[in-house]
């Protein structure tokens, strides 16, 4: 019996070693360890063995079983590993095939530029506010020290609805609204649509956007205005951007300035972009005129302030090198998808 057992064990291990595939392995398991398997039958015939030999033979049977099972397991793992490797190999893909892109929309360049500006000023503690686009003459002009028949009204080519209601020509119209109901310190920017009766061409549009900025507090100085706008220009156009303030005139600020930034294309050397000057005009600004403060109920003896106005389209056109303003309002997908 012992010899038979050893022989059986040897036979099983050999068969396992020579087996190919998981199915064959299972057959071997059934043939030896199954209910009717050879080793199982041998265990059943243990009762024919002399009682004193039974423990030894029994142990031998168990050992043989353990050895077969171990070998089966080992073989199974090897098969699985091989199978996995083959499967992975078969699944190889061409990673250079085109990507499947989700259809995602594009934001308008005006909005991208606006969000950039808003980010900069919100970071400096400014609140973003809005005002009406159809506006009383008072807020668009009079409260800004532009009385009726002031020549500045002609310069702005105003669209009138009635004698005292206009399409606002500038977001400066938001200034008085804010000052009337806010106690300083005031730090706001007011973006929005403005309207002037300019015929449509590559550089003009009867409807465009501005961003007004207003800061009112005790001890606000012209140097604060310079510092603020220099920061803004650097954030918007790059760290090495230089800023130049030139005297100018606006009825609602005094002193007033126009601001040029060093051309970010040629770095100030002069190119076609900046018409050879090395500078690009980007905004108008100044110290809020005391009359303007007074009209909106703020004491000019106690408070000073500065204001600035930026053309949003101007920034978008410059930043993205768009050569025709009309593109901004045509909404051609081939244009929009570049942003």
């Amino acid at each position, binding site marked *: 019996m012992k010899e038979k057992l050893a022989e059986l064990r040897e036979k099983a291990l050999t068969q396992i070693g020579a087996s190919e595939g998981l199915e064959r392995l299972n057959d071997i398991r059934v043939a030896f360890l199954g209910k009717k398997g050879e080793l199982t039958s041998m265990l059943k015939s243990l009762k024919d063995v002399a009682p004193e030999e039974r423990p030894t033979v029994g142990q031998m049977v168990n050992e043989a079983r353990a050895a077969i099972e171990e070998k089966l397991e080992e073989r199974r793992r090897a098969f699985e590993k091989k199978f996995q490797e083959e499967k992975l190999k078969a699944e190889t893909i061409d990673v250079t095939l085109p990507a499947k892109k*989700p*259809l*995602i*929309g*594009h*934001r*308008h360049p005006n*909005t991208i530029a606006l969000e950039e500006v808003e980010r900069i*000023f*919100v970071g400096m*503690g*400014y*609140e*973003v506010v*809005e005002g*009406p*686009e*159809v506006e*009383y003459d008072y807020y668009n002009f009079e409260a800004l020290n532009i009385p009726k*028949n002031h*020549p*500045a009204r*002609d310069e702005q080519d105003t*669209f*009138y*609805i*009635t004698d005292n209601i206009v*399409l606002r020509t500038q977001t400066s119209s938001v200034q008085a609204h804010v000052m009337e109901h806010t106690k300083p*310190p005031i*730090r706001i920017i007011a973006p929005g*649509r403005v*309207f002037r*009766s300019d*015929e449509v061409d590559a550089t003009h549009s*009867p409807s465009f956007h501005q961003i007004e900025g207003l*800061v009112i507090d*005790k*001890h606000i*100085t*012209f*140097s*604060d205005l*310079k*510092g603020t706008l220099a*920061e803004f220009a650097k954030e918007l156009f790059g760290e090495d951007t230089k800023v130049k*303030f*030139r*005297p*100018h*005139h606006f009825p609602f600020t*005094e*002193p007033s300035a126009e601001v040029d930034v060093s051309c970010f294309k040629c770095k100030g050397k002069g190119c076609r972009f900046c018409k050879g000057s090395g500078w690009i005009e980007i905004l108008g600004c100044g*110290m809020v005129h*005391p009359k303007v403060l007074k009209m909106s109920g703020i004491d000019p003896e106690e408070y*000073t302030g500065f204001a600035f106005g930026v053309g949003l389209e101007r920034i978008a056109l410059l930043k993205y090198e768009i050569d025709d303003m009309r593109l*901004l*309002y045509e*909404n051609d*997908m081939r244009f*929009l998808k570049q942003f």
Partner: protein
Amino acid sequence: MNTPLSWIKAYVPDLDCTAQEYTDAMTLTGTKVEGFERFDADLEKIVVGKVLKIERHPDADKLVICQVQVDADGRTIQIVTGAPNVKEGAVVPVVLDGGRVAGGHDGKVTPGGIKIKKGKLRGVESDGMMCSIEEMGRTREMYPDAPEEGLYIFSDNPAYDKLEIGSDAVEALGLHDVNFEYEITSNRVDCFGVLGIAREAAATFQKAFVPPVVTETGNREKASDYVSVEIEDTKLCSRYVGRVVKNIKIAPSPMWLQRRLAANGIRPINNIVDITNYVMEEYAQPMHAYDLDQLSGRKIVVRRAKDGEEFVTLDGQTRKVDSSMLMICDAEKAVGIAGIMGGENSKITDNVTTMLFEAACFDGTNIRLSSKKLGMRTDAAAKFEKGLDPNNAMTAINRACQLIEELGAGEVVGGAVDVYPEPKMEKRVKFDYKRTNAVLGIELEKSEMIRYFEKLNLNYDHETDEVIVPTWRQDVNEQCDLDEEVARFYGYDKIPTTLPTGEATTGKISFKMRIEQIARQIAEQFGFSEAQTYSFESPKVFEKLLLSQEDKQRQAVVISNPLGEDYSVMRTLPLGGMLTSLATNYNRRNKNVRLYELANIYLPKSLPLSELPDERTQFTLGFYGNGDFFDLKGVVEEFLEKAGITGLLTYEPKADKNFLHPGRQAQIRHNNDVIGYLGEVHPEVLGSYEIGERAYIAVLDMPQIVEKAGFDIKYTGIAKYPAMSRDISMVMDKGILAGQVEQVIRKNGGRYLEHFELFDIYEGAQIAEGKKSMAYSVSFRASDKTLSDAEVNSAVEKILKGLAELGIELRS
């Protein structure tokens, strides 16, 4: 405003700078130089030459061979020319071999100029070129001494009698000069004259300012014996100065005067007209000359026109004037429209012997309105409308008379008739130098500030700390104006850069803007790109959108002075722009276009407008190409969900939108409020916009959405107990809407109803005619226990009962 450097130097003799230096420095003190043109930029090696001998060209009828002397020593060169006016003895500009001229004789200016080289013309050697005024880069219009055609001939002009052969012809024509173009701001009326700019230049470069010395002029007679002046409307005419000139000799002006006018872009005409224009340029004071013999009663009356009056101006045009306009009249009739243009009946002709010179000061606003009404933007009106300094009028007219005497243009009658009821006085403006320092953020000595003022003829009263402001500086009225004077001469560039200190403020955007950001994000996630369209549009949009005549959306805010009908009404609905943009894309063959816009519509509260209209931001989505109604509905729902809008969302199939497909439109309701609509665009509307495929639009009213939106999210826990789900498959009339079924499920589903979802809809072979089948999966869940079959069955029963009331049966 243009002015050559030479003219500025006439009043700032020590000025010594390059054109670029001048440009930069003037711009930084506030007189912005937009650009400059060097008259001699493209003129090289051009000398004064003399044609000694002319011979015929052997092989060309239109060409001649000239021997031209080109230096004082008698050196001659041979030049072949086709100029029709060439003649022996003519002294002309000659460009030598290797030189350059500015353009062709046809007047076309060539950037960079044209190089002139020795060569052969029809086989004959030609060593240079004789020049026309165009080749010198100028125009015949501004150089009336040039002949109609051909070469510029110095020797035809007695002013050039002393010209030396071989000398610089560019110099002779006054072209070694730079012309500056300025942008003068409207507050600096004084700088609309050369003297004002020269004063600024002197202050900028710290050089002496030497204005012309206006001497006394006139004979022993008195102007008041010749003419009397009466102002009826002293509000519109604050001063009227008249002087008289007799024995007028009309002639061309001297070259220096002609050249200065030409540089400023003014065509020289004759001595009298030129003097008037010259003084207008110099002093920014327009003047007018009347033929005194044509003035009846030898009287001037300044009064308003009569309504309906007609008047013929000196250009021969008949103008309709009205009582808002000021006229210059004689004893009987109008002779000029004040400050705009004189009349034909009194204009100076070549036969004039005695004239009245007028220098007046009219109300700027009135002139501006009148010139606008008349459509006459004359040079005089452009100056008057800025609001001139009345004290300037007398100086200017005296300067003009001085030039008349100097030029021998006539005999000036002594004295002036001056009607000036309320003389304008110098202002005194209190000055606080500490405040200037505080506002500018600098620390500058008071004495230095005063030095700046004095350079500008703003004198300082040390006793009262007041600045004495001359009347020509009408822009200086208060402390802040003085701050500006200090700032610009201290240098904007020298003011330090600091950041505001003081109480911190919170940077933020409004809640409305946050909701708009969500709208953008969602739209873009679903492939919609952002469009921007105009706020105004054509009223024809209402027709294109098939709005009924009674439709409230036809009640639009109308622009009284639009750019044209296409931009004449403020939009009351956002579709015109959206459909136009889709059409543009369709027309350009862009496929699968999805756009959105966030912009206002303008709804009047009453018409005509007495208060501001209601401006409502609309979130508009539109697309054509892949997708359908339900894709768009999904975007709408996704947005509302992300905006934190909970509660019942329903869709009513009839939205009453004529511009949408009648069977594919829905009103969107949240709880009970209509918050928008969506649908497929009506084929007729698609046709009007020329969009060749189905398109869909959705419009959401943002003010309501902002009101309903919120970021108040509360975590409700993850369910611990299993959900029980039942599929309900039913048959119903075709006309029953999914919304009706869902309303029943929602209403009758009981408190354990968690979720339901349509998973099948079918019409066809296995279903009776006129019926359809729908299958819903309905799931129930309790948060505190596992539901029993009995509990679920009872809820399903209730749902089925409710459905049965609509005639809906279970599908067997």
